């Protein structure tokens, strides 16, 4: 049995240690907010946080996550009130929505490390998350809005 700490809860799972986190999260734990996009770490739809760092769960073995802190999109905030989530709602960022779990998880790392990102910072941080619907402009706008919300302290939904 493998013990995992996901979204501040402990789970016991009976899986091969080489199973990728994506399938453990989705199939064993039922947390289906994290998406399968490519399976080869090239699209970013599967992005989660491992000890606060954005990793691609489609290639990360569950063995790497033992004893670590895992955060999925479901655990980004307690009441869907992370500044990014509020900003996304305000500007209606998603189109089909499939990539946006990963977009938000990557953007959350950016805003934590750089509370006032420039467009260039956003390019550097978000270049690994692709959107087939082309919502990049709204993603950029949402990140700027979330940063502004954080600065003003307006993060309550």
């Amino acid at each position, binding site marked *: 049995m493998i013990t995992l700490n996901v979204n501040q809860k402990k789970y016991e799972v009976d899986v091969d240690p080489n199973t990728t986190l994506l399938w453990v999260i989705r199939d064993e734990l039922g947390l289906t907010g994290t998406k399968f996009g490519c399976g080869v770490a090239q699209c970013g739809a599967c992005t989660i946080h491992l000890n606060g760092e954005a990793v691609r769960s489609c*290639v990360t073995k569950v063995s790497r996550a033992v004893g670590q802190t895992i955060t999925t999109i479901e655990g980004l905030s307690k009441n869907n009130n992370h500044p990014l989530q509020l900003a996304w709602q305000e500007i209606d960022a998603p189109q089909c929505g499939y990539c946006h779990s990963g977009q938000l998880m990557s953007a959350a790392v950016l805003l934590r490390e750089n509370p006032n990102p420039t467009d260039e910072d956003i390019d550097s*941080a978000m270049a690994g998350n692709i959107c087939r619907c082309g919502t990049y402009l709204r993603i950029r706008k949402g990140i700027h809005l979330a940063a502004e919300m954080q600065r003003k302290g307006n993060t309550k939904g």
Partner: protein
Amino acid sequence: MNQQKKNFRLNHYVPVRTIVVMLIISVMIGFITAGFKDKESVVKDDSITVNHDEHYYADSTESVAAFMQVYKVLMSPRCMNCHPSGDIPLQGDDSHLHTMSPQRGKDGKGVYAMKCANCHQPENTPGLHTPPGNPNWHLPAADMKLVFQGRTPNELAKQLLDPSQNGHKSKEQLVAHASDGLVLGAWNPGEGRSVPPMSYDDFKKAWLTWIEKGAYAPQQ
């Protein structure tokens, strides 16, 4: 007519004998001075002290030849891709810019959600077009870029020997670097990637030979 022939022979006999004598003298001078001339046109860098152990001797020819083998490996994609001239790593056997444009960052480990270890796992991920892995996946730091891309053999050799450009490595550390985990990893690059153009054992031998035979830099 006979007088003209005689004058002709006289005018041309002396220069010929003179030329022969001059030739003999030149050859003698050549033999004498050959011993003072460098055997190879090489540049020896004094950053690394030559080992004058009784069982060792500096050999610029052998050292340079060994470095030219080392150069082939260091300029192959498995090495050069993480020693780019810019701040984006290279990728693939054709050394194109890494897709998604991850940045070097200050410590060489990437930035924000695009840190190297976010995708590159401690070991190779199985399958084609998946990230190769290593526990220490990174680029050189921004203040010590260790650029290979675009370097000539002379430039690269000098850079490798200069502690201010080689990661502050001493000669002993340079020798040990051949056994570094990331260096070794080049010969286990994951599916779909070529290995360097010689075996690891041959590369290590060439690396050690280059350093131990005087660490000479090729002229060009």
